[in-house]
Structures are given as C-alpha cells and as structure tokens.
C-alpha cells in the first residue's frame, strides 16, 4: 500500500453570478487526478502556472475543500475532517510553502514558529520543547542564536530552512513542498534543496514536490507527474519523463528549459521551435473536444500518458521499436 493514494481528485471553485448570486459555473482547478506517493520517495508534480498544482497540494494537506474524489491515508479518506482529526493527520503530513516570508508569521519568534506544531501535537515541558527546537535548528544548519529572532532578520534561504524545520518538527511521514525554491536565488536554492534531501535521508520522509522548474524536479524526484489544465497528462519515473516523453505537452515543457550549455544553444533553440510547431499543429490530437487531457493510459509499468487508447498503443509500438 502506498503512503498516500489520491483517486480521481476534483477541486472546483464556484463562480457566482446572476440575480441571486447563485453558482453558475466553476473553475475546474483540479479535475480528476489520481496518483500514489510511496513512503520515502520524492514525488514531483510539474506544470505551468494555473494548472492546479498548488490546489492539489493543498487538498492533500487538507487546506482545500475538495469537490469529489478521495485521498486515502492509512486506509482512511482524509478528505473528511473527522478522519483527519482521528488520525492526527497534520502530525504526519506537513507543508513547506513557496513564499518563505509570508509563510512565517512575522510577529513570532523563530522558537515559537518551530514549536507551533509541537505544542499542538506533543505535550512537552518547556525545556524539552526548547531542546527540540534547538536540535531542529541545528539540523537545518542554523545557529542557536536564531531562537529569539524574527523571520525578517533572515535571508530567503535561511527562512526557507526554518520552514523546513517547522515541517519536520513532528517527524511527519509526508511533506508537501509547494515550489519551495522558486523564489530563491541559485546559490540559496542549492542550500535548501540539499537540506531537503538530507532530511529525507535521515528521517525517511516522503515529499510531494511541486515545481515548474524541470531542472530542479529532475534533481529531486524519482517519480513525476505532469499536470496541465487540472489534469495529469503524463506520469512516470524520472527516466520516463526526461528521456522518453510521450505527451506533446511534456515535450514542450522539456524543450523550453533553458540550457546552460552555450555551445549548442543554436540546436537547442531550433529543437524548441520545432516542438512548438508540432504542438501547435497536433494539439487537437492530444486533447479532447473540450481541450482537456484524456484519461491516463499506461504504456509501461511505470509510465502512463493521457492519450486515446489507440494512439497510446501506437506509441507503445513505436517505443518498443525504438527500444528494440
């Protein structure tokens, strides 16, 4: 059994209008997605802006009211508030946010910020608590004198590490990391990613790693899901996605990653323009009448793509040929 099983998750935001302010339409932010996160792995969720990544992440931690579908954790559907309470779900599942400044209460000292989940879930004495906080700070590489400072006194990278410390304080099983490094500079980004990896190694935590930076995702994740307009278009292992992308959208995303290899930037660019061209021409082949992705069909044990069955089979054949 996987750690978390997400089945056909839908989150629709109502659009109200008309005379009585009734719900007349909805934004289908997440529109039927399913995937599983295994214990100890980093699961990547990639997609362009507005594709529903954050909404998915928030649903998993229980910040979002979901429209339908289920999220199973330890055999229970935690989309129900009661189950979440019963399982002490937020003891086990925590979140790291994109904007490190806004995710730390600017009026609280670091000690209180990190201790917040501890105070809610574990009843420790003052000293025990302080010791824990110090140890956590130590683990994320911050000095003990951070204890009584305020978030604005830290740099972005340090703040993000404080966020990590808070997230791991209760020794959770899963951490949702919603674009944890997008707002950071390169050198700082490296720090944070290193710490996330270190902590995963040491505590055996799983991550749901949300990002639109394919370079970072490749560095962090074993399994990756590509999201587009509220649906998944492709899931697979790192190798599947990066080396054998099938869906045109995935290909397009990959082609758009800027390369640091200056020597063949001309080719790279030509390649990208070619992919763009294909994308424009073949778009309707990859999406249904409403412009939505098709349901996923497996093309290998680890690799599924959102394509009509026939097309998928054809591709499998081609792939097979290629592989062979």
């Amino acid at each position, binding site marked *: 059994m996987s750690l978390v099983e997400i089945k056909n998750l839908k989150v629709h935001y109502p659009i109200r209008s008309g005379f009585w302010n009734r719900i007349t339409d909805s934004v289908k932010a997440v529109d039927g997605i399913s995937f599983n996160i295994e214990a100890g792995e980093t699961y990547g969720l990639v997609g*362009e*802006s507005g594709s529903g990544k954050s909404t998915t992440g928030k649903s998993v931690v229980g910040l979002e009211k979901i429209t339908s579908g289920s999220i199973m954790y330890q055999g229970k559907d935690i989309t129900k508030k009661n189950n979440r309470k019963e399982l002490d779900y937020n003891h086990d599942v925590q979140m790291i946010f994109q904007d490190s400044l806004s995710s730390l209460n600017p009026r609280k000292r670091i000690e209180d910020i990190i201790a917040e989940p501890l105070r809610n879930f574990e009843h420790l004495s003052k000293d025990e608590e302080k010791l824990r906080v110090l140890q956590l700070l130590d683990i994320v590489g911050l000095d003990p004198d951070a204890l009584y400072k305020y978030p604005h006194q830290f*740099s*972005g990278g340090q703040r993000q590490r404080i966020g990590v410390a808070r997230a791991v304080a209760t020794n959770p099983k899963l951490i949702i990391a919603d674009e944890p490094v997008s707002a950071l*500079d*390169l*050198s*700082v*980004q*490296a*720090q944070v*990613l*290193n710490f996330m*990896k*270190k902590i995963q190694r040491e505590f055996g935590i799983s991550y749901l790693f949300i990002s*639109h*930076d*394919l*370079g*970072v995702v*490749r*560095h962090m994740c074993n399994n990756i899901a590509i999201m587009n307009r509220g649906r998944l278009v492709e899931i697979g292992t*790192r190798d599947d996605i990066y080396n054998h992308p099938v869906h045109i959208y995935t290909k*397009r*995303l990959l*082609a*758009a*990653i*800027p*390369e*640091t*290899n*200056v*020597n063949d*930037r001309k080719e*790279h*660019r030509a390649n*990208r*323009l070619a992919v763009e061209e294909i994308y424009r021409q073949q778009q309707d082949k990859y999406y249904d009448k409403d412009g939505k992705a098709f349901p996923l069909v497996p093309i290998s044990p680890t690799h599924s793509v959102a394509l009509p069955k026939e097309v998928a089979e054809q591709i499998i054949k081609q792939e097979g040929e290629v592989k062979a």
Partner: protein
Amino acid sequence: METTSDFLNIKDVNTAFKINGKYYDAISHINLTVHHDEILAIVGESGCGKSTLATTIMGLHDPSETKISGEIDFEGTDLLKLDEAGYNKFRGAKIGMIFQDPLSALNPLKRIEDQISEVMTYHTKLTAEQKHNRVLELLKEVGIVDPKRTAHQFPHQLSGGMRQRVIIAIAIACKPDLIIADEPTTALDVTIQAQILDVLRKIQAENHAGIILITHDLGVVAETADRVAVMYAGQIVEEGSVEQIFNTPKHPYTRSLLRSMPQRDNQNDDLYVIQGNVPSLQKMPQIGDRFAPRIPWVKPEEHEKNPTMHEIEPGHEVRCTCYKSFSFPDQVGSVKA
C-alpha cells in the same frame, strides 16, 4: 568593441541611496560598454544592484534620495548631465525599458492601446489613426494573436505572458536603439519565458538595437546573451562573451554560481552551496574583495587590496586576481568547509 564604443559607455558609475540620512553605494564603479546589435546580460544574485544599474541608466531615481556619479555616454550624450526634459527625449524614444512585474507596471485603468500609444504621443508626430495602426502592428510583432481585441482590453484581463508582451511593445514602440530588460521573464513559466525571449531576440535582430538583459537565471543567459557581465554586491566581477563565461569562468563567484545549478547528472549528489550571505548595503565592505568572506579558504594575501578588473583574454575581464588560486573545497580536499 572599439568600433562601436560610441553607443553606450558606462564609466565609473556610482549610485548611492539615502538610508537614515546617510548615503550607501548600491552600485560602485561600474564600467560597461554595450554595442549595437548585441545582447548584454547582467547576472547576479538578488540585491546585487542589477535593477539599480538599469534605473540609473534610465534616470528614474529621485535626485533627493540618491547620489549618482560617473558618466553614462549614450550616442555621444552624457545622460547624467541631462535635465528632466532632456532625459525625456531619450526615454521611450531611444531607450526602452521592460520591467519585471508585468501587472504592476501597467496602469490598471488604461486600455492597452492608450498605454502603448502614449509613448508615440511624446516622441513621434503620428496622427491618431497612424498610432492606432502602429499599436496593432506592435502587438502583432510581439506575438499577440488578436491585436484588435487586446488593444481594447485592460491589463487585468490579460494573462501574465500577454502583459509582458504589452510591456515589450511599449518599450519598442519608437524603435529605440537600446532596450533595457529587467528580469523580463522571472515571473513567467518556462514555456512563456522561452517565447518572450524569442520575441526579444527577434526584435533585436530587426531593429539592430542593443539590449541589456538583466536576469538571475543562468539558463536564460546562456540561451540568449552575446556578452555577460556578472555582478556581485554592486560590482561587476566578471565580464566576457557567453562562451567565455560559461566555458571558462574565472571568478570564484561565477564558478560557484554555475556549480550550484542542478545538473542533469548529479541527481544523487548534494548541490554546491556558497557559504554565507550577500552583505546588505549598509554592511558592504568598502575595501578588499567583497566576495572574499564567502571563500574563506582562499588566503587573504591572494586577494587584491583594491580589486580591479583584469583583462585575461580579449573581451574577458575578471575582478581581483584571487581566481588564480581558487578551487572548490571538495576539490582541494584539505580545506574544511
């Protein structure tokens, strides 16, 4: 470069901000040359003074809050000596600027068309009709599919990518010789980023403009720029062609940056981390190598007292000579990080 050095020459420019009554240099002793027909990228971490440099060139600083010295020669005029009216002849007409945040950079209450044609009002003698046609033309040029409709819309009705294109349209409306693009793609998705960069390049090719592209994304630089200046803490620490910078980086800072990027093949290794932090304006060391505190294993005597730019091959300059003895700690092995 000596052939076109009469285009834009930035000489020894200093910009200081007033903080609590005292002035602190945000950029110090910047020397740069931009040529026609090239894209000069300026890279560096947040807060290193990239935007300050851009706004200094554009003359957008409030004189009562800033102190600027040096010389900015643009096509034979020293911009820093101009008064407001004189500057306005350049801004928009000869120099266009593209801002980072496409939402707030557009007036929320004006239609796109009005915002674009406003530039032309002050720099051309076009009639209303001509302006209208030019607006549609421009929107098409920056890759907007339905220019008529977009021209009539308000900024909030557009997506981020579209807004950024509108900003570009404004910047190029009068066919400027120089375009300054301050992080034009940071707020955007990779796919849109690629498109925007394409547009920029296309424009440059068509107008033979010089472009200053400010970014902190090394990938963008590698894909787009012809020449690169790396900034650290208000100074330029390395300058050279794209190939020089990416293939044979010299300055420890440049090398560290490149090394901290996630690479295709280092999934299971830790990324390289630069120690310490960028000093804040008020705590900026005024003498010595500003990067020195972050590479403590390089001995003090390896740093110059007052580091200057050294040309180490044609077109490739590096600040400070410490690059000669720099190597990463894990490669040195003996030095403990």
